[in-house]
Structure formats: structure tokens, C-alpha cells
């Protein structure tokens, strides 16, 4: 009778895999998008006043 429960265990692990993989993919894609956006802006000659010397704050409210 315990074999009836297989679907419940599979559903729990399956949903976990889907949600965590989606979360991981979203975080990686977002990171790549921001890296590219920053590189594109810097390629246009835009730089943060603070780049070079590291003080925080610039543009970070």
C-alpha cells in the first residue's frame, strides 16, 4: 500500500527541483543582464565618479 504514496513524494521533490532551478536561473540571468548593462554604459565612457578610489555611496541611495 505504501507504493501508493510514490506520487506524493515525487510531487514534493519535483516541485522543489523546478522552483529551485527556476530561482537559480533567474538569479544568474539577472546577474548577467546587469553585468552587460554596466559594461555597455562604461563602453560609452560613463564612469562612476568614485571608480578608482573605492568610497561607497555614489548613486547608492
Amino acid at each position, binding site marked *: 500500500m505504501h507504493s501508493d*504514496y510514490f506520487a506524493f513524494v515525487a510531487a*514534493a521533490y519535483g*516541485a*522543489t527541483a523546478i522552483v529551485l532551478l527556476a*530561482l537559480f536561473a533567474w538569479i544568474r540571468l539577472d*546577474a548577467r543582464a546587469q553585468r552587460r548593462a554596466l559594461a555597455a554604459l562604461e563602453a560609452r565612457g*560613463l564612469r562612476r565618479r568614485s571608480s578608482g578610489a573605492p*568610497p561607497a555611496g555614489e548613486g547608492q541611495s
Partner: protein
Amino acid sequence: MSDLSLSKPSRFAILANPTRFLELSGRLQPWLYGLAALLLAAGLVLGFLAPEDYQQGRTVRIMFIHVPFAWLAMMAWTVMSASALGTLVWRHPIADVSIKAAAPIGAAFTFLCLFTGSVWGRPMWGTWWVWDARLTSVFVLFIMYLGLIALSRAEEEPGRNARAAAVLVLVGFVNLPIIKFSVDWWNTLHQPASVLRAGGPTLDPAFLWPLLVCAAGFTTLFFALHLNAMRTEILRRRVFALQRLAARRAEAA
């Protein structure tokens, strides 16, 4: 901010500088992901090698993911609460970055806690859901995560709602002891604590070990994802600042 090179900065000050934070976290991040993968692989293998429970049969395997998700749902909010103090007391930008980055990850773990609990409850309790104190308080936590996500992303300028988000996080912290002790204070369908309880765990070591390794794995995964999302959020704020700078230059020209 004063020039850090003049005085010897404290360890905290080094981490609190976004540029240094990006450097250090970039080195740490691959190791965190690697450690999480190792621990999760070990924990899941141990979990499937564990014997079936004499009452619950194979559904006991759901415990190895459901319980870590419940712990992490609360730990993520605790991390955000500590960060909220950083926003309100020291007004530090990285503290808000931490809250904003942690919220979707905490929400995902809370959702998984509710979902895995539901498919465990159906065969063992005979119901998918019941409005008892434990389940309801965790559901409230999930709603608070969603509210916080909406609030922290409502404005185009990142970090604009930092103070409001920090206050919401601290108000929501009240829910955590309610979740933890709900099974003691009220008569719930959910069982009381088996691991973190006075008198030690009641779980057999055959189940306790896979559970602890899985919990360590998911916790490491949380911190790896959180660090990754924080780094991205810092970059997003730089992108926003540079875009505003570009717009201002275009206006001046």
C-alpha cells in the same frame, strides 16, 4: 564617506564598502555554490538510503526537504531583520541590498515549505490543507514575503523604499516566534517540534542525519543565492546611477 585608506578600517567597514564587497563575495561565491551542491548531493543520497518509516512509509522522505524549507523560510526573514537594523540604525546601502535580494529567495523557500507540507499532509493527515495555527502563520509569512517583494520593487529607483521595507521586515519579525511556538500554544494538526526542542531531538539517527545534511545543504544554497543576488543588486544600482548621469549629460548638451 571618509577615505578608507587613511585609517585602518575595521573588518566590518571593509565588508560594508560595496566595491570591496563585490571583490570578496566574487571570490567566495563559487565555493559556496560548490559546497551547497556537495552537501545537497550527500543529503539526498542519505535521504533515499534511509529506511522507510514504520508508520509513514516512504512519505517520510518528504521530511528531508520540507523541514529545511521551513527552517529557511524563517531564517531568511531573520537575515532580513538583521539587515533592516542595518538600514534603520546605520543607514547602510548594503543592508537594503541584502533585504531586497533575500526576499524572493525566502518567498521561494516558504512556497516550497507550504507545497511539500501539503503533499505530505494529504496521505498522512487526509487533507491538503487545514487552517490550523502553524499552517496559517506560515501562510501569513508567505504573504508578507510577497508584500515585501512588491514594496521593494515598486519604485523605479532601486533602494527608494529602503526605510519602509526595513520597517515592514521588523514588524513582520513578530510572526517568527508565533510560527515557532504555534504548535505549543495552540492545538494544531501539525506535530510539535522534533529536532529543536528541550530534551533533544526525538528523531531516530537514521532520519536525523540525512535531515541535518540536507538542512546544511539548503542553508548553504540560500547564502550562495543571496550573495549572488546581492552582487547583482549592487550592479543594478550602479547601472541606474550611470543611466541617470547619462540622461543629465544629454540634457546639458
